[in-house]
C-alpha cells in the first residue's frame, strides 16, 4: 500500500437495494483501489474490493479494440437504423444516466425496460391494483415490533437489512432492539436467514397465494378448514397464531422478496400480500415493502415513472408512452424475436435471461455498457467499458424504500461514465435522425399498410 491514502466517510455502497450510506472507505490513490470498507457487509466488501481499475479496451466493436468515440458512432448508427430497438437494464447506474437512456428511447421511438421486469415487476403490476401501504426503512427501524420476511433470504442477499433496519437495531419505539421485535420468516426452504427468525413458516412451493389468502380470511374472522395444512404445509394453528400476533402488534411490516414474484402466481402473490397489509390497518398499523436487489433498481422505477408515467416495460414507438407487461417487457420481446437492436446498460441479460431470449440477443446488434467484462458484452456488436457508479461516478441512487441518496465516489476512472457515453450517443442519434423519429400513429380507418 502506498502513502497516498484517502479516506472517504459516508460513502454509499450500491451493490444491493439497501444502498448503505455509512461506509468508510480507505482508498489507495496510487493503485486506484479500495483497501478497506468499514461497515460494509460481505457483499459490499467484495463490491468495493473488486472494482478497481482494470486494463480493458474503452470499447470493442465486433471484438476489435476501438475508442469510445468510434463506439459511439457505431452505436448511434445501429440505433438510428433500427426499426424496433430496445433499451434495457439501468438498475446499476445513476439516475442521471437512466434519464438520458429514457430520452434516447423517446427519440428513436423505441422500447425501454429495466431489470425490474424480471425482479419486482409483478409487484409493480400489483401496486396498480392493490396499492401499497408502506413506510421508509427509517420508520421500520424506529417503530416495527413485528417483522415478517416473506420469500427472501436477506442474510445472503441483503445482510445489513437485518442489522441496520429491521432486526437488531435499537429504535425510538423499540429501544431494546432485537428483544422488542418478533421476527417471522416465510420460505419454501431453510436458508441462512432462518436462524434469525422467532417463527419460521415453511410453505410448500407454489402455495404462497393460498397461505396469504387464508391469512386475509382469518384476519377478517372467516373460518378456514384445517385441510389448509395439506395444501400449504402450514397448520391452521400456526396461521391463527400469526394472525393474532399481526393484529396485536403496534407496528407490523411485511418485507417481501422474489420468492413471491418469480414463482407461480407472480403478481397475484404480491397483490395478496399488499392486500393483507392494508386489511390489517383496521386493527393496527401495518405496512409492506418489496426488498429490492440491484443498487439503483428503485431509481430506475422512479426515473421511468417521472419520465414516462410507468415504472418499466414502456414502448414509445407511437410517440407517447404505452405500458403493457408481457407485450413491452424485454424477455417477451426477445423471446418472440420482435426487436432488431438492443442497448443494454449496466446489466447482463445474457447471463440470466431464459434461453430463447438469449438466442435472439445473439441474432441482433447489441450495444452494452458495463465496467466489467460480461457475457452480454461478449456477444455485443459494441461493448463500452464504463466507470463504476458510486465508486468512480457521482450522482443519485434510490434506496429500496424510494429514498434518494447522493453517491460519493472514491477515485477517478479513466473510463467515461454511463451518462457520458449515453449523452454522446443521444447527440449523435439526434444528428442522424434530425430530431425525434416521427411517431407512427394509428392509421386512419380503412387504410392498410
Amino acid at each position: 500500500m502506498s502513502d497516498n491514502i484517502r479516506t472517504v466517510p459516508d460513502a454509499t455502497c450500491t451493490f444491493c437495494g439497501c444502498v448503505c450510506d455509512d461506509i468508510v472507505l480507505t482508498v489507495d490513490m496510487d493503485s486506484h483501489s479500495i483497501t478497506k470498507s468499514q461497515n460494509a457487509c460481505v457483499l459490499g466488501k467484495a463490491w468495493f474490493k473488486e472494482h478497481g481499475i482494470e486494463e480493458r479496451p474503452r470499447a470493442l466493436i465486433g471484438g476489435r479494440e476501438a475508442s469510445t468515440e468510434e463506439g459511439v458512432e457505431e452505436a448511434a448508427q445501429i440505433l438510428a437504423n433500427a426499426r424496433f430497438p430496445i433499451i434495457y437494464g439501468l438498475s446499476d447506474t445513476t439516475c442521471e444516466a437512466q434519464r438520458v437512456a429514457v430520452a434516447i428511447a423517446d427519440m428513436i421511438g423505441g422500447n425501454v425496460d429495466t431489470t425490474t421486469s424480471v425482479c419486482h415487476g409483478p409487484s409493480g403490476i400489483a401496486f396498480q391494483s392493490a396499492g401499497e401501504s408502506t413506510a421508509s426503512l427509517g420508520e421500520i427501524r424506529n417503530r416495527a415490533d413485528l417483522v415478517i420476511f416473506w420469500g427472501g433470504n436477506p442474510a445472503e442477499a441483503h445482510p445489513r437489512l437485518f442489522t441496520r433496519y429491521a432486526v437488531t437495531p435499537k429504535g425510538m419505539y423499540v429501544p431494546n432492539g432485537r428483544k422488542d421485535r418478533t421476527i417471522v420468516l416465510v420460505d419454501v426452504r431453510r436458508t441462512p436467514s432462518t436462524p434469525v427468525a422467532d417463527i419460521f413458516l415453511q410453505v410448500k412451493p407454489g402455495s404462497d397465494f393460498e397461505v396469504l389468502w387464508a391469512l386475509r380470511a382469518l384476519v377478517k374472522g372467516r373460518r378456514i378448514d384445517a385441510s389448509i395444512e395439506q395444501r400449504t404445509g402450514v397448520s391452521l394453528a400456526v396461521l391463527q397464531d400469526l394472525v393474532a400476533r399481526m393484529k396485536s402488534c403496534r407496528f407490523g411490516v411485511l418485507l417481501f422478496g422474489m420468492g413471491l414474484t418469480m414463482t407461480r402466481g407472480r403478481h397475484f402473490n404480491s397483490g395478496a400480500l399488499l392486500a393483507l397489509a392494508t386489511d390489517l390497518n383496521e386493527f393496527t398499523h401495518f405496512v409492506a415493502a418489496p426488498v429490492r436487489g440491484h443498487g439503483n433498481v428503485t431509481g430506475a422505477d422512479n426515473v421511468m415513472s417521472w419520465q414516462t408515467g410507468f415504472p418499466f416495460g414502456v414502448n414509445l414507438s407511437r410517440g407517447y408512452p404505452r405500458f403493457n407487461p408481457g407485450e413491452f417487457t424485454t424477455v417477451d420481446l426477445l423471446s418472440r424475436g420482435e426487436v432488431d437492436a438492443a442497448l443494454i446498460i449496466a446489466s447482463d441479460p445474457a447471463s440470466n435471461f431464459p434461453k430463447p431470449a438469449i438466442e435472439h440477443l445473439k441474432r441482433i446488434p447489441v450495444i452494452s455498457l458495463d465496467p466489467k467484462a460480461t457475457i452480454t458484452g461478449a456477444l455485443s456488436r459494441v461493448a463500452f467499458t464504463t466507470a463504476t457508479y458510486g465508486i468512480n461516478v457521482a450522482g443519485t441512487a434510490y434506496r429500496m424504500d424510494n429514498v434518494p441518496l447522493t453517491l460519493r465516489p472514491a477515485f477517478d476512472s479513466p473510463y467515461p461514465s454511463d451518462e457520458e457515453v449515453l449523452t454522446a450517443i443521444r447527440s449523435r442519434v439526434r444528428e442522424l435522425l434530425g430530431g425525434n423519429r416521427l411517431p407512427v400513429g394509428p392509421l386512419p380507418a380503412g387504410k392498410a399498410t
Partner: protein
Amino acid sequence: MPEYMTLIGGRSSKQGTALCQGKLEADYLEVTSVVEMNVEDMARLGIVNEGRVRLRTPGGESILRCKGRETKDLPPGILFMAYGPLSSELMTGDTAGTGMPLSKNLQVEVEPVPDDA
C-alpha cells in the same frame, strides 16, 4: 420412469461476492454450476456428493455438480441452485403476460450422469 423435482433458483453469498469479480471469472462459473439436493433423494438416485446430474425442462437442459443437503435444510423433492448461465438454460421465455419468466418452482426432470459419460 423419469424423476421430477422442484427447482428453486436464487441468490447466495458466494454468488454475490463472485459476481463482483466478474461473471466470466472461474469463481462465478463454479458457484453457478452446483445444484443442492436432499441427501435422501441423492441416495435413492445413486448420486454421490459432487457427482453430476442432468436437469431438463421443456426449455432446455443443464449438467451440474450435485451437493447434498440434510432434510432439515432442504426437503425431499426440492432442488436449489444459484442463478447463472446454467439456470438460464432451464427457463422458458413464457411470462404469462407479466414480463417475468418463472425461475423458482420449476418442474425439472432429474437424471444422474455417469462419470464416464
